[in-house]
């Protein structure tokens, strides 16, 4: 792979809106990605393997629970810092960002928000340091966009719960030490349970042959009469709103992350267009290529403003789920379109692993599907503005 020459575009001087600490966090994450991700990621994506060795580095740059309070091992940063870290990591690879999103928003967040003090103390510091890795089981073979229909269930056996069912498409599952699993009780109410690797009847087979997020491990969670101790239930919240609260946090991070992938594609295409000569001129001199590049930077700038404002709202505790849906949908779609256009600017070179663009493009096909598909987020906006839900 080519050396990482990334220079971040900042067309509207957004840096001026960031605090000194935001920039320190951003520069550290950016430097780390250049040093530890860019040189290896293509190889791991090609061989479809998660690079285990990066876990320590991810923890050190604060990618695991940046907004979790310091007393639980988090970094105690604000939501904009969280967004910035996701942006920088996804600039490297969406699969690596997925690992960080899951750990932060889908595992640490529910334990912090819905867990007991004992659960927080037991798990959070180890999750923040990467000593423990987690995954989040909501999607099932028969229930993706409609998780409320889930079939995984648990029964109160007096001194423990008995868990049965299966989850599919679970990021990090093949190596996770713990899983935050959403299942229905006997009354059909959704609850979160912490399932630990090694519990009898619990297995996590890997899903192979993905063309997307190849450097991220995805798999199943299978529960065959798993005895889960009662103290592993997350008591703070139940019903579908509990997992959706986690998704809000992860989707917010994705709305920033996608900008990172888009920036990398744009920056690569811009550099290539200025260097590649055809018909005696750099291809950047042709109007068609300029149109592509000009539209890319316009869309990136719009997405940055959307994410930044959403970050302010999140910091104030005012961001609504519908606002988060809009940003996730818009920014991921923006990134995917930019990846496709950028790939064309590179011509044949665009399809090789010499450049990051095609990897980003393939990755973003997952990102536009997980955490609520592109369609579902549109329907959420539709329901929000009309008051009529069209997805049921």
């Amino acid at each position, binding site marked *: 792979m080519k050396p990482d020459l990334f*220079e971040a575009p900042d067309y509207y001087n957004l840096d001026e809106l960031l605090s*000194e*600490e935001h*920039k*320190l*966090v951003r*520069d*550290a994450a950016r*430097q*780390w990605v250049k*040093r530890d991700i860019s040189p290896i990621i293509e190889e791991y994506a090609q061989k479809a393997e998660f690079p285990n060795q990066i876990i320590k580095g991810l923890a*050190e*740059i*604060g990618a695991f629970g*940046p907004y979790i309070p*310091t007393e639980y091992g988090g*970094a*105690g*940063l604000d939501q904009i810092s969280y967004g910035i870290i996701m942006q920088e990591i996804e600039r490297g690879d969406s699969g690596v960002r997925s690992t960080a999103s899951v750990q932060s928003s889908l595992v640490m967040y529910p334990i912090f928000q819905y867990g007991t003090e004992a659960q927080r103390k037991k798990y959070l510091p180890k999750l923040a340091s990467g000593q423990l890795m987690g995954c989040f089981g909501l999607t099932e073979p028969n229930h993706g966009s409609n998780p409320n229909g889930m079939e995984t269930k648990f029964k109160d056996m007096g001194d423990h719960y008995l868990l049965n069912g299966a989850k599919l498409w679970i990021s990090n599952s093949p190596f996770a030490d713990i899983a935050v699993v959403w299942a229905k009780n006997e009354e059909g109410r959704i609850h979160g349970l912490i399932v630990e690797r090694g519990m009898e009847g619990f297995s996590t087979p890997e899903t192979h042959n993905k063309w997307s997020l190849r450097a991220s491990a995805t798999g199943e969670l299978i529960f065959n009469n798993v005895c889960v101790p009662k103290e592993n239930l997350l008591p703070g919240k139940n019903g579908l709103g509990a997992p959706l609260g986690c998704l809000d946090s992860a989707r917010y991070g994705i709305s920033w992350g996608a900008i990172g992938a888009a920036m990398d594609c744009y920056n690569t295409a811009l550099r290539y267009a200025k260097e590649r000569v055809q018909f005696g001129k750099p291809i950047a001199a042709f109007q068609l290529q300029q149109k592509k590049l000009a539209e890319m930077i316009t869309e990136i700038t719009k997405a940055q403003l959307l994410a930044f404002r959403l970050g302010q709202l999140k910091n104030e505790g005012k961001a609504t789920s519908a606002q988060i849906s809009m940003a996730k949908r818009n920014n991921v779609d923006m990134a995917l379109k930019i990846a496709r256009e950028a790939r064309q600017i590179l011509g044949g070179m665009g399809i090789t692993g010499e450049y990051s663009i095609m990897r980003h493009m393939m990755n973003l096909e997952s990102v536009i599907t997980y955490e609520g598909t592109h369609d579902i987020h549109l329907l959420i906006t539709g329901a929000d503005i009309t008051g009529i839900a069209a997805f049921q």
Partner: protein
Amino acid sequence: MKILVCISNVPDTTAKINFTDGDTKFDTNGVQFVINPNDEFGLTRAMWFKEKQQATVHVATVGDASVEPTMRKALAIGADEAIRINANPSDGFFVASQLAEVAKNGAYDLVIGGRESIDYNGGMVPGILASLLDMNFVNACISLEIDGNNATAIREIDGGKETLSTNLPLVIGGQKGLVAESDLRIPNMRGIMMARKKTLSVVEPIDANSTTKDTKFEKPAAKGAVKLVDNVDDLINLLHNEAKVI
């Protein structure tokens, strides 16, 4: 051991360089600033002394409030305290005079500067500083070991290396080699959080003259266009008759 690392805040090596005010001032617009690379090698070596020999490490910079992000980064990397001398770093003598005052007041055993900063490449601050402080001095230092009061330093010289033994208090002008490039540290989240609580004090400058003044900057001439030739004879012809190098 008390160490003072003198840090200069310089444009990132990839920054695009332009001048304003009739080519008398560097245009900082849109420029990213970083710790001067030679100073960063020194700071990283100081971290080693802190971790292995329990040294206390302070950093000092002459500059206005815009240099504070760079100082905060040094704190995030692990320096214990930062001191900003609130003045425009107008020339080498002025900067060295200000740093000498801070170094005197802090009674440091070791003062680490960079051999030169990559912005103006003056290369005089550590030398003037050593003379103002009346301390031993090793420039172009590529290795430093301290044992009690004794220091062993290696200096880069033309075509080789020179090993010196000297005593504290000592000033060095450091560079790559003090630590390897791969030893340079990215601030981690714990460091960034701790940096919040560390002292960054601002002191007013003492009276000192600038002995030089920038009157004009010029950029190197732009590179000429590349001429492609089809055969060796044409190449030789051009080198001989046009470039006149053979």
